[in-house]
């Protein structure tokens, strides 16, 4: 796990005593000047470009959930500068979980690219991301930088580098298995600290995970995603992408929040399917949706 440790920032600092050090370049001079300038500006009360960040939170666009997720925070929804976990309920729900990760990333990327890191072998076995399908969800596949990592450790290292770079909008790292090698409290803590520093949303996408007894991580929230029956279109054709989402864990103790969401590609927004919507016909109402019909709630304690 020490692999992730290597903090390139520290390595980069050339010490002045080192006779072989690169002399201070124009870039470094500009950086020092800029820092001094920013200090002066902030002292005089002028806002610098660095300070003017975009929204700090991202939402589903569904008022009921976003307000419930507010907790003690200043804004609705989930904090952007954090690590969130997305679990697939079952193996075959992986596509829904991946779509949810992509859609959340799309909702808060502000024109920056999405870094998608996956373990190559697993992706080959379980189905690869298919760009025309990404375009069908309303996301431009050009915004995605896709990485086939040879193993989990490399994937996590790449994620750590991605999260540190504020040029990225979102970093999604996809790991398979109940106990992926290298994924532990330390690694996730490091990811979430980097995310806090850089403001990059980091999503950890897990397939085949044990949602009953998940690995302890430093993630801000943990979600379980499964596919849900869609509202049929004409001639009983399968409808828009529909998800069942359940909040498994939240830093401020929320629990039991669940919803059925439908993605509206044209408005780039999720629609709450629970608000008085009749369950799909054919008399085959999945038992799960009955359980999750009302979000019990609110907050613990």
């Amino acid at each position, binding site marked *: 796990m020490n692999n992730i440790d*290597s903090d*390139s920032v520290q*390595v980069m600092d050339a010490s002045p005593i080192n006779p*072989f*050090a*690169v002399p201070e370049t124009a870039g*470094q001079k500009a950086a020092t*000047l*800029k820092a001094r300038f*920013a200090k002066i500006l902030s002292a005089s009360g002028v806002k610098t*470009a*660095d300070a003017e960040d975009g929204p700090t939170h991202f939402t589903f666009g569904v008022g009921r959930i976003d307000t419930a997720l507010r907790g003690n925070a200043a804004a609705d929804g989930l904090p952007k500068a954090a690590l969130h976990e997305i679990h697939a309920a079952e193996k075959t729900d992986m*596509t*829904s979980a991946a779509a*949810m990760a*992509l859609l959340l990333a799309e909702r808060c990327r502000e024109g920056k690219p999405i*870094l998608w890191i996956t373990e*190559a072998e697993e992706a080959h076995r*379980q*189905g*690869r*991301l*298919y*760009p*025309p*399908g*990404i*375009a*069908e*969800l309303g996301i431009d*596949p*050009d915004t995605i*930088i*896709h*990485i086939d*990592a*040879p193993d989990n450790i*490399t994937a996590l290292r*790449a994620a750590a*580098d*991605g999260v540190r*770079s504020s*040029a990225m909008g979102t970093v999604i790292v996809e790991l398979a298995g109940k106990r992926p090698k290298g994924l532990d409290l330390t690694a996730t803590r490091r990811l979430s600290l980097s995310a806090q520093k850089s403001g990059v949303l980091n999503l950890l996408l897990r397939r085949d995970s044990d949602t009953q007894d998940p690995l302890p991580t430093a993630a801000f929230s943990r979600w379980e995603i*499964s*596919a*849900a*029956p*869609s509202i049929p*279109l004409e*001639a*009983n*054709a*399968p409808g828009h*992408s529909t998800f*069942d989402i359940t909040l498994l864990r939240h830093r401020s103790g929320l629990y039991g929040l669940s919803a059925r969401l439908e993605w509206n*590609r*044209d408005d780039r927004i999720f629609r709450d399917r629970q608000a008085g919507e009749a369950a799909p016909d*054919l008399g*085959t109402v*999945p038992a799960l949706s009955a359980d999750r019909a009302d979000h019990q709630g609110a907050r613990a304690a």
Partner: protein
Amino acid sequence: MALFLPYLPTERIIRARGQPEAPFALTEKQRGAVVITAPDRQAVALGLGVGMKLADARARVPDLLAFDHDSLADAQLLDRLAEACERYTPMIAAAPPHALILDITGAAHFYNSEEALARDVEDRLDATGYSAHWALASTPDAALALARHGLKEGAEGQLPVSALDMDAKTHQALERAGLYKIGDLSDRPRPNLAARFGMELTLRLDRLLGVEDRPIDPIRSLGNVTTDRRFPEPLTHIDAALNILEELFTEASEHLEQRGQGARMIRMMLFRCDGDIAKLGVETGAPTRDPLLFKRLLRERIDALNDELNPGFGYDLIRLSIVAAEPLAVKQLKLEGGEDLEADEVALVSQLSTRMGREQVQKFQPADSHIPEQGLLALPALDAPPPTPWEIPPSNNPPMRPLHMFDPPQRVQVIAEVPDGPPHRFTWRRKAHQVIRYEGPERIGSEWWQRKHGQQSGKGGLTRDYYRVEDIRGRRYWLFRHGLYGEEKANPDWFLHGLFA
């Protein structure tokens, strides 16, 4: 300058196994007979030569040892030696089987004269156990011929006519005409020679005499900008070597700045004083002159090495060359802050590509094919072309293409109500799925024009009928029937090609 290594194959054996007790030779099977291809020094002294049958040779030297000749290993060794000679000049060509050509024009300023350089080469080769003849001449062919025959510059006239390297018949004809040496030929009028032996002979003669120059084909092309450092005392610390590389890059980037260029590909060579060379390459996603970025990429590259850099007895020459450069304008950063996001993105992509290999970091591009699995390209993000717009799906439609695709498609067992109808139930990974909704078929024909006789019916490949189906749990699948029932196939197979969100 040419280097001729007459005992290269046998000295390779001696280096690998130590000096055998008896004279030995390398042999090869030629037309059913075992023939000597490379005798060692002792064997040559005993009168053995190339082309002699092993049985004959054993009759003369009973205790002769024989080993198999591995000409591939010789070629590799020659290439390695060529690389080792890159410390003298970047223009090096291998002249198989046993010679190297070095273009040392303007490269001798570290030595007092070209002879001193040549002697240095000889000493180094000698230290590693290879004996070499060298010769200096104004053209590569002349130098090569002189080195082969153990002569020095100016002695071209004493070369035998076989140095022309024509076929045996021509050589014989020349000797029969009383022309034994190149010197005999050089005085003769060229037209007569050309009329008798062909233009080829006069051309080769001119090359030998240094009248006509032939460009050599160097093993590596010259870099755009090359900087190097030589050390009287070898460097034994990696960190010091890396610092030198960074300094060299800073130096090279000053040159690049004057030209308004940035480096895309950087090649580094660390010459160890015992002849070993470590080669490193770094590629960036966009032209750069940033030493910090270079430093980061260099560290990545070194971390990703399979076997660590080992300075051994130390590096005595470190060279950095910019192999590919692209225009890079000076960029004005905003004074009030704001980050150069684009540069940061490129830096990240370069860093990850350096660590994992350029093929692993990809960007997607649409491809011109209606076959679903061929409709995309995953190109290395390092040199991805400018983005091509993707087809925008019509509004208010559900996704028609899956988010995850299986390649190859996965076989499923399907029960349909009618053989050419939609699926009713299907079994995938030993689990049954009940289809409650479907849409289709979307018929996708094969690329019959790609096949031989594809225009004839039945030879154009199988048509696919795609169905978008949803099962009772709400999962959406993309299934297809491979082949039209009854027309193309009696009992078409079904495949699962993708999963929808």
